[in-house]
């Protein structure tokens, strides 16, 4: 392909150790685990194909054309392929740095004039500005909360008013869950109930803290119930995933630095994370620092203590919950739990201890629901296809409640369930919320 007329190819992906490409033996065993491939059937949308595309760009066999970008952009970074790959290919460690470089370079190609390496308005305002900041996020959600309380949102949707919003804003509006009444922020310290078994910190995150504060409260209560002192360092920040994934390395490194110092406290047995997406980012801090700013932050001691709440509780062994919840729960594996953190059995084993609750696994559990961070905003079509596919699999087991350990998934599932049938009212809860209800002797919200 590379004859003399080929223009100088942009240098992309050179920072990626070449061995990582060689790890892929081109066997194709990962393909059927990849949600985008399962939908399109196009090898270019498969893990093997994407690795081939990236490698070919690195080798100078292929230009980074819009089509190539398109296939790489369509990747959810769900890392289902890593779970499927017998060769231990670290797909995330190929794609993520490649994307970072793609964002940074935005190089000129024949079909595409040179563009400055600047994020567009949407990324600037929403992804970088608003999202990662807990305070702003809360403020921003205030009007939405009022609208919802007054049912104005439905009205606006019904009369088509929301269609006047730019596409991505509208999708954000669609994704908004029922926010409920604002709950107070968590205090700096909550003490263990009964015998003290551990001292842990709670990671809050940005979007999650604003939209999912009830889950934080539930998490804290369950931890207390199981003999944990819960510390909530107020200097903690957003995990930095949004920045990192959209190629904004500097702010990402800065957030990592701040979080590492916020959770430095050696007396903490674990740092509990209840959002799978944040958890996998936090656990990846060491790799990311190695990649973006080697040696700049010492992450080791903090990283080894990041634990998903289900992982931590399953290891600790929980006090048997007693409140009866007679319901069928469909468990949805979040990619960031099952693939990125390889946590699959723990949440289920916790849920199974709730009296009366039947936990059902669903079909195609390995496939992403299409939420994938900001994916549902940037790739709406594929996100909807996967969302509806997931909804079908969930509804197949006729659940009374859907359980998911990741905030992003919950938003997506709720939105997709509404889309499937606006009158459907199946609650989507975090496993910890169900556990909390059982401890408190409450039933499912009706």
């Amino acid at each position, binding site marked *: 392909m590379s004859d003399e007329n080929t223009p100088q190819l942009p240098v992309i992906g050179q920072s990626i150790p070449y061995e990582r490409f060689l790890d892929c033996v081109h066997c194709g065993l990962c393909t059927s685990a990849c949600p985008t491939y399962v939908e399109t059937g196009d090898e270019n949308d498969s893990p093997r194909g994407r690795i081939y*595309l990236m490698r070919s760009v690195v080798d100078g066999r292929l230009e980074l054309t819009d089509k190539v970008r398109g296939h790489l952009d369509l990747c959810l970074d769900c890392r289902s392929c890593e779970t499927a790959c017998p060769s231990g290919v670290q797909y995330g460690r190929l794609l993520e740095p490649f994307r970072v470089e793609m964002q940074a370079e935005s190089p000129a190609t024949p079909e595409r004039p040179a563009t400055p390496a600047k994020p567009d308005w949407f990324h600037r305002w929403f992804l970088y500005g608003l999202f990662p900041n807990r305070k702003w996020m809360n403020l921003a959600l205030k009007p939405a909360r009022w609208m919802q309380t007054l049912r104005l949102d439905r009205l606006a949707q019904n009369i088509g008013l929301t269609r006047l919003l730019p596409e991505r804003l509208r999708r954000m509006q669609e994704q908004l869950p029922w926010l409920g009444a604002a709950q107070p922020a968590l205090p700096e310290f909550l003490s263990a109930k009964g015998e003290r078994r551990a001292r842990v910190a709670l990671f809050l995150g940005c979007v999650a803290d604003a939209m999912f504060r009830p889950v934080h409260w539930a998490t804290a209560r369950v931890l207390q119930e199981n003999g944990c002192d819960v510390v909530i360092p107020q200097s903690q920040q957003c995990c930095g995933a949004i920045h990192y994934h959209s190629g904004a390395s500097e702010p990402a490194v800065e957030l990592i630095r701040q979080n590492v110092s916020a959770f430095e406290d050696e007396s903490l047995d674990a740092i509990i994370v209840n959002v799978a997406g944040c958890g996998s980012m936090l656990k990846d801090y060491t790799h990311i620092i190695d990649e973006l700013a080697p040696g700049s932050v010492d992450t080791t001691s903090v990283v080894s203590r990041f634990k998903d709440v289900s992982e931590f509780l399953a290891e600790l062994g929980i006090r048997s919950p007693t409140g009866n919840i007679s319901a069928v729960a469909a468990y949805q594996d979040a990619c960031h739990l099952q693939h990125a953190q390889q946590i699959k059995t723990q949440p289920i084993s916790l849920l199974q201890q709730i009296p009366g609750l039947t936990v059902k696994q669903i079909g195609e559990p390995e496939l992403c629901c299409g939420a994938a961070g900001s994916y549902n905003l940037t790739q709406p079509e594929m996100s909807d296809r996967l969302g509806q596919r997931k909804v079908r699999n969930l509804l197949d087991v006729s659940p009374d409640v859907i359980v998911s350990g990741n905030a992003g998934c919950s938003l997506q599932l709720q939105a997709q369930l509404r889309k499937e049938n606006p009158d459907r009212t199946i609650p989507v809860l975090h496993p910890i919320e169900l556990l909390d209800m059982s401890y408190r002797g409450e039933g499912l919200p009706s």
Partner: protein
Amino acid sequence: MSTTEPCVVTPEFLRELAQIVGTERLLDSKDELLVYECDGYVVEKSVPDVVVFVESAAEVSAVVKACVKYSVPFVPRGAGTSLAGGCLPVGGGVMISLTRMRQIVEINLRDRFAIVEPGVVNLNLSRALAGSGFHYAPDPSSQGACTIGGNVATNSGGPHTLKYGVTVNHVIGVEFVNTEGDIVRLGGPCGRQNDFDMTGLFVGSEGTFGVVTKVWVRITRNPAAYRTMLAIFDSVDDCSQAISNIIGAGIVPAALEMMDKGIVGALEEAFQFGFPLDAEAVLLIEVDGLEVAVDDEAQTITQLCTDTGAREVRLSQTDDERALLWKCRKQAFGAIGRLSPSYCTQDGVVPRTQLPQILKFIAEVSERHDIAVVNVFHAGDGNLHPILLFDERNAEQVQRVMKASDEILEKCIELGGSVTGEHGIGVEKISFMNRLFTETDLEVMEDVRKTFNPSGICSPGKLLPTAGACGMEHIERSHPGRKAAM
């Protein structure tokens, strides 16, 4: 295609294809075609001119008719896990991707068959059957990804085919689009057929007869019970003797798989199963059947192994343990990455009693060429998968690997065996065909190919050395990359 010129794909032809499948389901730009230049076999490469994603037999038929009209060759492709280059578009042309034809059309438990489209992933059929008490028996190690259409084309086997047979034993009917573009049906679910067993002939034809658009498969009752054992040996000789004794004793285990020291070490590192690292070889043995019978069989096998010098025979105690053992076995090739940057696998077969000889020979070859070889294979069938370890960046070593592979396969033939037990001839092993068969044999086979595919427009350059292909010389031969298998 008797021409030696590469085929010409014209804009009119592309327009015609686009009218059939729509532009969304057609790839024709270089940057999107590149990933289709090879399958699981990466030594040889050739980029197709266009890829179409068909969704029905009618579309396949229309695409083939267009190909005939414009004299452009075509090749079907499933999941692209072929290890023999079956999907290589020799000389370019149209690649017909079946990945969007993935409906399970019907499952009939009472009559024990299912009808599936060719793009259905093997494991998805068994998943769909989960809980019904039935399963689809052929279980290639690639079953999580490979398609039933691909299985039919290559007559795939797997660990459990020792007792249950290979794909052809489970395919009772096929619908395909022939090289004129007509939809033809062979066989079906009813017991006896009046015609020649063309279904049997079709299975294993490696895509050279046309494009499979629907498959009738038999589904099998699950065994009521199974026992899974791990026998540990201090010598490879003893181990291969034990295999021979088990078969000789008239026991047909459901599976009988051997792994040698090299692979066991890598597996232990990957999965921490608890394999003894100092053992020279281990046998993974599974018996299944009636609850009343399996214990006796397991006991007989244990005795046979112990008598042949097994150090220990472990019976797996829980379902989880069994699952992990099988995971180790099925993912064995993945663990090779821990031993070497590159590897290549062969698929030779010998009569089961010749296993000790061939394993000795492989060890000799390994030493003579200074190439490390590890073994993990379907011992019960005599189907070897010696894995040769090397570094693809070392050209001289690559040469030695090629030489060593060739000698091993040559020896398989000498011992009365074959060069491929399940991966197929494809483009990879074409050069062995005239060592396995006489000129007349190949002439007859060529005649059979012409019966189905007179112009050679479908899958040129595959399976038979005589199958004239347009632009054979346009295959790019690169050095072997790492290759997973089995």
